């Protein structure tokens, strides 16, 4: 079973992506469904007994998430390559503007130790790291900086020289 970094702990992943588990519609484990598929068959997915997550791509607009946000316990945001930066804004907006309190997970080939710290500062609390990447090193990367000039998400956003633990 895949392991992920969640809330600073390395844990077995109790979620599966739809592509990994085509029979997920009736299961009781967590399943992460691409936004387009979730939209297309929302009432069916919504009625699923198990936990539901949604995966959004860089070009998706988080403003458009409405009923999905209510129903989903997890949002996965894609970071397919190192130069793709839209997901950072998705994270910030989901946490601060949309008030999403569930698991915010970074997924994709770019999710490696060198971007973990910034992702966490944008509100991500779970990391499904790139294949081959060292999860232990990713966990350590969360401690890489002890200071920052910007306020992080979630929480207070009006302190510029905040020191956070």
């Amino acid at each position, binding site marked *: 079973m895949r392991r992920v970094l969640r809330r600073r702990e390395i844990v077995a992943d109790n979620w599966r992506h739809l592509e990994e588990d085509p029979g997920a519609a009736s299961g009781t484990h967590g399943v992460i469904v691409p936004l387009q598929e979730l939209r297309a068959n929302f009432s069916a997915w919504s009625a699923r007994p198990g936990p539901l997550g949604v995966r959004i791509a860089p070009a998706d607009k988080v403003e458009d998430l409405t009923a999905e946000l209510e129903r989903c316990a997890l949002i996965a945001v894609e970071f397919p390559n190192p130069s793709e930066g839209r997901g950072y804004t998705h994270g910030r907006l989901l946490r601060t*503007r949309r008030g999403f309190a569930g698991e915010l997970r970074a997924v994709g080939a770019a999710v490696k130790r060198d971007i973990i710290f910034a992702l966490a500062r944008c509100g991500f609390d779970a990391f499904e790291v790139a294949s081959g990447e060292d999860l232990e090193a990713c966990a350590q990367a969360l401690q890489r900086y002890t200071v920052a000039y910007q306020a992080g998400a979630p929480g207070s956003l*009006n302190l510029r020289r905040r020191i956070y633990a």
Partner: protein
Amino acid sequence: MYRYDDIDQTLVAERVNEFRDQTRRYLAGELSEDDFRPLRLRNGLYIQRHAPMLRIAIPYGLLSATQLRKLGDIAHRYDRDYGHFTTRQNLQLNWPTLASVPDILAELATVQMHAIQTSGNCVRNVTADHLAGVAPDELDDPRPYCEIIRQWATLHPEFTYLPRKFKIAVTGSPADRAASEVHDVGLHMRRDAGGAIGFEVLVGGGLGRAPAIGQVIRDFLPLKDLLSYLEAILRVYNRYGRRDNIHKARIKVLVKSLGTAQFRDEVEAEWRAASADAPQLALAEVERVRAFFTPPPYESLADIDVTADREPEFRAWYRYNTRAHRVPGYRAAFVSLKAHGRPPGDMTSAQMAALATLAEEMSFGLIRVAHDQNLLLADVRQQDLYATWLALRREGLATANIGMLTDMIACPGLDFCGLANAGTISVARDIQQRFDNLDYLYDLGEIEIKMSGCMNACGHHHVGHIGILGVEKHGEEWYQITLGGSVNGFTALGEVIGPSVPQRAVPETIERIIEVYRERRDDGERLIDTYRRVGLAPFKERVYASRAQAA
């Protein structure tokens, strides 16, 4: 100037550790070239033609004597005894080894310097007027706000992977010595009716491919909203800027494609939506930073005539290389990095050390970097100007050509840069040789030549009175000439004069342009004024007619 506290110092130290780890992993083969590239670029490290190039940040162009001495020392120990000052007020080292870069960064951290975000698709070094705080025409000193922006932008978690690089310039003077209108964001300081500080906000300026002049999207932004508004601009850009084509990824392309009005509406809507959670600038923090920029302890002096009975060389230097100061009895003195025969912007370790000492003696221990690749001692007592000149002259830093034709801007070009199509240093040298007579230069008056070795326009060629752009043609180095560009309060992009010319023909082409100017100028008219009055045609005709006859 701003001094690091514990937070600032801790941050650069942690950054050094992070980069040391990344470099170690790369050298050990644990990090691929593709993975290392964006990491090193965000730290100003390029792999160039001959060696890595490290770009060191000089925030808004302000250096202490201690810092300049350290830069000279680093250039001596880790490089070939010199550095290159750039149009972004930074310093580039052309020959460090990759393995030594973490040590260089650690050395920089000891004098409160770093190379964070001097490259990469992120917010770059914030630049400002080199006469900030001393110019008589200034509304207020922009540097405290530059420092606040520097801190806010440093390792900003949301805006680390923008579609493309992002450059901000701030000016407190209508003369706009910071070229702010050709930046992604230009901030012009303003006061409202009650006297409170704010900013006019321009967006979408930039050089490089498809150069554009910044458009005003806000007439007056209150100071407390400075960071939240910048966040709104960057968030709109981060979400909607193009990522499919590197040549169309700058914010200027987004502004053009949406139109200025719609872009402004998007920013304003984002800004209003974010008002609940956006960072308002804490005024206590503004005061804390402003306190670092209070004027130095000027003496109470009167203006005096320092040129009487002095030699003509000093009088020329005084006239061309010094500028008025808002405090009586003082002047700002340029340190020319445009000695004929030297690459524009280059400075040796020995010159850096000597200038550091001179700054301690003569100018409160501070040095400025101007975007036109000269340095400046901003606070020299007029009675010390002669001694300052003698000291600068000993070091080869007193060429009295500031603002003249040989005070050229030039990027490092093909000799160093992996992006360049053509050389710049040898062309600059040929032009300097052709126009080596200072009295002739003084007769020609103010002429700005700006040269880039490729379309990326690090040498600002679009806004040179005469712009020179290196292009590659059948494997040879050719040069496209433009006329009529300018910044400094009246921003215009130059017009291409005609087909590009081979390298050997560049000095002659410049000379033909100068000939037309000398024949056509009215009294007191600069080249740029004559060009605006008579247009491109007479220049074009002469340049190409003469080439045809010569052939």
